[in-house]
């Protein structure tokens, strides 16, 4: 199949950028979206042009490196799928595809479609960990955890930190990302001792990084390749409110 691509090109963080049109020819439906870009880049390289920069690593939907706003939808048209797992069979011959980087004040464009997502790392550094010494591996059932808590904690832990929630949010809020980690650790016994401090510190860091606030449009849940629920945001708000009422110190 043949496609017309409108791709954001920007030489560097401070360089001006613009949408550039490319024709992608001979694309097969079995290709992944990133393979399609690889082919386009080969063509560019052969013509002596600078290939399109985009982030990727595992290409199997687990590392969270790939990004891309595809036709106005974070990670493209397939629900619960990262860009690397999106295949060209989701498009038709002759389609026009807009490809843009994640847009947020907090996510600086490094080059073309690659953005700096280190603000998310700093949110994790602010509280997305436990300090209880866990020692060497214990017997699996030493600490009993309710089935429901395990299920919800593991659903939240599925976050791969790709930043699609920020990209899809009309307010560029990182609430779903932050809430997923607060929920994951806050539901497990090992995460209890810092539960309220964690909520305060992670929310604080999220705001220092100049992400927006949650208006509950729900776009983040739709965009999330791991389909993490906005219920985690309710839980983050609850923990933050409790921490404030309890007078927890950050």
């Amino acid at each position: 199949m043949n496609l017309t691509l409108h791709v954001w090109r920007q030489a560097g963080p401070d360089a001006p950028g613009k949408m550039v049109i490319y024709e992608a020819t001979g694309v097969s439906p079995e290709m992944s979206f990133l393979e399609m870009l690889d082919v386009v880049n080969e063509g560019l390289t052969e013509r002596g042009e600078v290939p399109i920069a985009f982030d990727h690593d595992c290409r199997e939907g687990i590392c969270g490196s790939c990004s891309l706003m595809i036709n106005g939808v974070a990670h493209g048209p397939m629900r619960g799928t990262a860009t690397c797992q999106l295949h060209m069979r989701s498009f038709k011959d002759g389609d026009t595809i807009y490809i843009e980087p994640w847009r947020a004040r907090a996510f600086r464009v490094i080059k073309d479609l690659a953005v700096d997502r280190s603000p998310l790392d700093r949110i994790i550094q602010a509280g997305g960990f436990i300090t209880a010494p866990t020692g060497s591996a214990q017997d699996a059932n030493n600490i009993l955890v309710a089935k429901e808590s395990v299920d919800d904690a593991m659903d939240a832990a599925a976050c791969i930190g790709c930043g699609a929630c920020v990209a899809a949010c009309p307010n560029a809020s990182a609430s779903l990302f932050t809430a997923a980690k607060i929920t994951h650790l806050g539901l497990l016994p090992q995460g209890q001792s810092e539960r309220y401090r964690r909520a305060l510190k992670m929310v604080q860091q999220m705001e220092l990084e100049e992400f927006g606030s949650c208006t509950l449009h729900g776009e983040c849940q739709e965009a999330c390749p791991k389909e993490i629920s906005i219920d985690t945001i309710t839980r983050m708000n609850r923990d933050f409110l409790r921490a404030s009422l309890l007078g927890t110190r950050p």
Partner: protein
Amino acid sequence: MGRLGSFYGSMVGKKVVMGVTGLIGIAYLILHVLGNLLVFRGPTAINSYAHFLKSTGELLWTVRIILIVAVILHVVAAVQLTQQNRAARPIGYTRREPQVATIASRTMRWGGALLLIFIIFHILHFTTGTIRPAGVFSSEDVYANMVTSFRIWWVALFYVIAMVALGLHLFHGAWSSVRSIGVSPKSPQPFHRTVSLLLAVLVWAGFTSIPVAVFVGLVR
């Protein structure tokens, strides 16, 4: 910064304030729409109800002050959050396709601004009698105030339009507020919002019925 300062200083804190003040507004609106519907039982019913409210004196003023403070906090937080949210994405997308955002969620800001204008107009119109579209006003005869005003097309239309904004605001707000303040139970289908749909439709229909009924001559 004190505890309260750092709470309100955070966007999550501001949203809690919006949620709580919004819920206060919703609770009031439910009572308000039920009271107003007395207009369909004739002048005596609604006028004596209005008289009863005014006879409560201090209680009436307590409620009024709570509502005024709630609206001010709600609006101030809305403006601050909107500014922060706009700043969070200085460069937008060439193409963006919202997936699940509703008309309601996307009109909270403009709809809210219209509601603010409406609230001010409404108080000057029916409470203080400062604005008199029909040229007459009586603080004793609420029924007559409604009937004379809503015969005027632009007054009826303004109320009808404002109530559309209110219905949309409530459809999103009733659902989102309980999440903002962290009290909503978890749900396998967070986007199912039967309760807020019901609430929004009933409040909208209740309020809208009055100017419409007067304008078409059902209530005279």
